[in-house]
């Protein structure tokens, strides 16, 4: 009795989501002028995939990083200035990853060492990211980034597909392999599922948490590069609130907020969904009110479904009411 992989995919949460996304895509394409907006849709999609992956790793541990929006602006400030100075792009990407890693490592360190919920730590980081600019030299907007560099960010394949989308798909494929076939990927699932069991099985749960936070920071660095590279100026406050996209992407994809479940392929599908919702609110002219309402309702429904699906598994966890 070998299961047909195609059928089992469409029976899973990701498959049902994919069908829904496909229907929504057809409706959106028919009722609005999506084809002319395709390039910016795909451009948004590329950074949403990577940002969603970063949040997926963290949420899989039952943690959260609310500062994932504001840190993009901080990274963008550094990378924008470096690009203006003429530093080659690969080095700038490494710097972006380093800055993101440092930021997330701080959250991870405080969380692991002092047993403070990561949610509150990352809230504090939001304020630090907003407030750090007066302390930096020539703070504020970075404008007049050379045309050659924005051209790299805006490079297209076959007319519509941005090069950065190809990079983010590559990163996604890497993480599909990473989560399934490496020891560290398995450890993340184990620690997210049950910290105690993982510790008893010989896994250093604190170390895994810290390292996962650091990897998520590196991904946020790449997200920031993808967000700012096509832009001709960096306005750090522009990314405040981008976690509003990443958290729904992660929870819609089936990452249980209690930790331990989730697959990178789900991130791809839910990133398409969220990017489409955002585009739909623009194309249909609905404005911010409907955008925020949709995200709020989507998060509630997604989390409610993921919590009730696995309710028998997580019963012990829930009734104690500890901070998730």
């Amino acid at each position, binding site marked *: 009795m070998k299961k047909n992989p195609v059928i089992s995919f469409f029976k899973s949460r990701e498959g049902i989501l994919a069908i829904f996304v496909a229907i929504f895509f057809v409706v959106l394409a028919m009722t609005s002028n999506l084809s002319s907006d395709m390039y910016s849709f795909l451009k948004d999609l590329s950074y949403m995939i990577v940002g969603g992956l970063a949040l997926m790793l963290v949420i899989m541990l039952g943690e959260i990083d609310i500062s994932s929006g504001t840190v993009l602006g901080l990274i963008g400030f550094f990378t924008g200035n470096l690009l203006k100075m003429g530093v080659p792009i690969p080095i700038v990407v490494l710097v972006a990853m380093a800055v993101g890693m440092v930021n997330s490592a701080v959250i991870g360190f405080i969380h692991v060492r002092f047993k403070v919920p990561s949610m509150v*730590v990352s809230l504090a980081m939001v*304020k630090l990211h907003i407030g750090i600019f007066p302390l930096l030299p020539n703070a504020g907007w970075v404008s007049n980034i050379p045309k050659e560099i924005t051209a790299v960010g805006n490079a297209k394949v076959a007319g519509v597909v941005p090069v950065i989308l190809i990079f983010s798909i590559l990163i996604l494929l890497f993480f599909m392999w990473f989560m399934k076939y490496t020891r560290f990927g398995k450890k993340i699932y184990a620690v997210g599922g049950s910290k105690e069991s993982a510790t008893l099985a010989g896994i250093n749960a604190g170390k895994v948490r810290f390292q996962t936070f650091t990897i998520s920071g590196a991904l946020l660095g790449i997200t920031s590069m993808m967000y700012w590279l096509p832009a001709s100026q960096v306005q750090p406050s522009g990314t405040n609130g981008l976690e509003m996209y990443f958290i729904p992407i992660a929870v819609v994809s089936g990452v249980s907020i209690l930790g331990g479940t989730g697959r990178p392929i789900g991130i791809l599908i839910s990133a398409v969904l969220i990017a489409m919702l955002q585009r739909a609110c623009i194309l249909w002219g609905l404005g911010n009110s409907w955008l925020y309402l949709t995200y709020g309702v989507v998060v509630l429904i997604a989390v409610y479904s993921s919590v009730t699906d696995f309710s028998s598994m997580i019963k012990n966890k829930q009734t104690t009411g500890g901070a998730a």
Partner: protein
Amino acid sequence: MKNKFRISNNIILLVVLIALIIMFGVLVPDGIFFMPQVLIGTTSDIAYLGVMALPMTFIILTAGIDLSVGFLMTASAMVFSKVFVATENLLIAIAAAIAAGMIFGFINGIIVAKTKIHSWLVSLATMYIFQSVTWFIGGSHSYAPGNGLVDFGTGKIAGIIPNQLIVLIVCFVIFEILDTRTTLGRYLHAIGHNEEAVIFSGVNAKMIQCLIFVMMGVMCAIAGLMFLGKSWEVNQTTALNMNIEVITLVVLGGTSVAGGVGSIRGTFIATLIIGVLKKGLALMGMSGDVYNFILGAVLVVSLIAFAYLEVRKKLASREMAVKNMNESASAE
């Protein structure tokens, strides 16, 4: 043992407050910081945050959190403006705002109580929903309050004590009595320590959780009115990251985010500290960004400090340590 620890906690906060006042008194030129109207006036900028921090202390005591406070406040303040423009009656508008806050808080509370979703995620989702409510009501405009409210909001008794401070103190006294003298207060501490045990001892813990979220909604509506009275208008960006400021007040006041430990008194003193800090920095000519940075640093430092104190406390008392270990084992 425990009682002694809590008192010393608040005394540390008082020492910090006095040290800050002296520091700004020396740093701000001409010693204007020591003038009574400036020193007492520091509270008028922060009172609306303090009013929201009081019920937030209850929520964090039960190991929950509410991220939606800022937009809840804006949404109910906008309801006030809308109703006031329509009816021209201050009392009806205030009643409408408080009713709106109550409904918003009830939405939060009922979802937290009836589903298994943790309150931070519920309030994150409702934060977006309330944000959309502010866009639905307000559009891209900002709304000014009636003159009666502004007269009250900027008014001072005897030219020194701001009305905002009076409101804050009244709310503080009510919540302090609720915290220390009523069954509700004891249940809140108990839920934070071990919710399961509270449920098994026959207390409807879920209803209490719903109740404190409704309280939060009402206090947010009052805070919204205070904010309107102070700064004439609200718009969609008013409340961005306001939840962090409220949570900072609570955490600085010594309330543990793990639940069970904390006091309304601590939150009140923390409110005064942040008020002095905000006003002092403004008088020294620092921008709002510096205040943001310092606020974030204060939150991080107080989180680490209180977590460190918790660890010390655990080591000090073996009995406590065993209990806490059992607790954390069952909570995970």
